[in-house]
């Protein structure tokens, strides 16, 4: 547990190369580490610090600000139920109570089989589809108690494996800038002139 693997270091360097300053890659690399291990380990933070030029304490300082980064293992499926106004008006709190009793855990807890972690979440931008929840950041809309039970059954049976990756992976598609198409990042101090297209003439 667990520095970044060789393949992830390659990805990390590609990501770092897109930014004018390496430190900007801190959060993307933390996501990469969480994708690798399911949560953020001390070794990973030290490794990320080496890659972006920060101390591990600085990396932890950043990481600990953001809710999506977990420093201890969570369930394979992180279920975030929204508790903010639009969802609360449409039964969000009742849904939380139902989820707690169905899974036999409280908000913030993980089931003993390590499959589910329940969290109370803040507004998830699906307000017209209240109450909503996310499983590893994949949405479920207008969730009733019955919907919730079905969802849990399906997750337990592994029926949603292709749609919902294990906790850690957020987007399953990566940006890739082809070498011959990218402009490339330049440190701001190395830029002294305005862009070429600002010469008063049309670009095309």
């Amino acid at each position, binding site marked *: 547990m667990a520095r970044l693997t060789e393949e992830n270091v390659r990805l990390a360097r590609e990501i770092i190369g897109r930014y004018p300053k390496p*430190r900007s890659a801190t959060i993307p690399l933390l996501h990469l580490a969480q994708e690798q291990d399911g949560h953020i380990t001390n070794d990973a933070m030290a490794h990320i610090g080496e890659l972006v030029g920060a101390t591990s304490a600085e990396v932890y300082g950043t990481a600990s600000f*953001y809710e999506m980064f977990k420093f201890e293992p969570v369930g394979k499926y992180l279920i975030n139920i929204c*508790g903010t106004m639009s969802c609360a*008006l449409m039964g969000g709190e009742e849904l939380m109570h139902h989820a707690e009793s169905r899974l036999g855990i409280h908000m913030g807890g993980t089931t003993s089989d390590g499959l589910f972690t329940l969290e109370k979440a803040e507004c998830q931008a699906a*307000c017209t589809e209240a109450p909503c929840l996310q499983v590893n950041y994949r949405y479920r809309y207008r969730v009733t108690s019955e919907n919730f039970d079905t969802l849990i059954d399906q997750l337990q049976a592994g029926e949603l494996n292709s749609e919902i990756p294990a906790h850690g992976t957020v987007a399953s598609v990566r940006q890739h800038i082809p070498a011959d198409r990218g402009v490339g990042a330049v440190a701001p101090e190395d830029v002294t002139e305005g862009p070429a297209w600002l010469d008063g003439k049309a670009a095309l």
Partner: protein
Amino acid sequence: MTSNPGGTWPHAPGFIEGDRPRIVTSRFEYEDSYTLQRYLATDGYSGLRAALGRPATEVHDEVKNATVLGRGGAGFPAGNKWGLTPQGVWPRYLVVNGDESEPGTYKDRLLMERDPHQLIEGCLIACYAAGLSQCFLYVRGEMALAQERIATALNEAYAAGYVGKNILGSKFSVDIVLHWGAGAYVVGEETALIESLEGNRGMPRLKPPYFPAAIGLYGQPTIVNNVETLANLPWLLRNGAEAYTAIGTATSPGTRMVAVSGHVKRPGVYEIINGITTFRDLLYGEEFCQGIRNGNELKAFVPGGGSAPWFTPDQLDLPFEASQVGPAGSMLGSGAIMVMDSTTDIPRAALTLTRFYAHESCGKCTPCREGGTWLERILSRVVDGKGTDADLDQMFEVGESICPGAFPHASNEKLGITAVPFPYRMNTICFVGPSAYAPVHSALTLFREEFEARVTKRTLIPVTAVAQ
């Protein structure tokens, strides 16, 4: 939609049928709206081509003339914002604010998921017009599908020559970098967004400077624009400022996306005409929300995101026009309308918002960090029936320490109160603190009797009696 397999759970259409102006949602009706193929078949990247056929300053003027109001919350015209960069300082950056997380707000996510190429084209036009040499597209961490759709779209656009080096074979070159956050509401504040993009804790910067256009990312001039704002640009460049300003009113041209949630018959995300459509049209109109659920009475509504002071039925006839909503005591904010019907428990509803802001305080400013938490605790106690009447005034007192002076609220005929206009004064460097107070203040001002029914009346013992 992949996130709704089999369509078992319904989802907001995001567009309105019929003959209405559709500037940003025109492709939403297509199942494959997010693909490059569909985009190119529906005028895609022709706004960019039109822009590159003109000098950059002319494109900037076109956007200025159209008065494209910022759709993130503050409503500042985008063209003017671009003009705030200091002369001769390079490089300049574009940071796209896709960290949509204001309670009730649901529009940027749809624009990113359903029409990512439109956003990319908007970013390119902005970079060209304002001389911005790199673009960072900051998407909220929790929005996996939006990230995937944008990553795919960017990969397609790079391969096809729409992004990167010598775009469309011209001298215009710019990289767009997809970056996503990791869960923090305050990062929607533009200086906090920049801090986060630099790899730091997402805490807002001290002001002045008030605009990162002066000092932003890496200390360089930086334009931060909202997703919906940029999504307007391809249409604008295709059709011109005159066509844009022909929709809506002179001070609020074009359309805007609004999300109506809560107790209406047909909650949804709608593209409405700016400055003209009223709250009544939206809440009761056949093409929109079709009235309050179960035929109930409307009790109150939040007109512009969780941070906005509340309105009651008295304000239903106001249009989506900042110059009218401001004096009436609230703001249009991020286009989020949350509707409460007569069955709503008002103190509890207010608590769901105040709890949000108390939780999301970054902790930098004491009035917000402490005040927000105090408000949440006191309100919690009142909701649980454990409060006293002194708690009610205590909440105003705490609020006063976050926002000194009169706090904006709506007029109310029944209560005989007149409006206090928006905005407020504040003791914090961003709007999170005042936002924790707004729902408490509105609820207490407009529905005090509901709080009083919940609290124990204390008998005050005179000081003289204690002294004896």
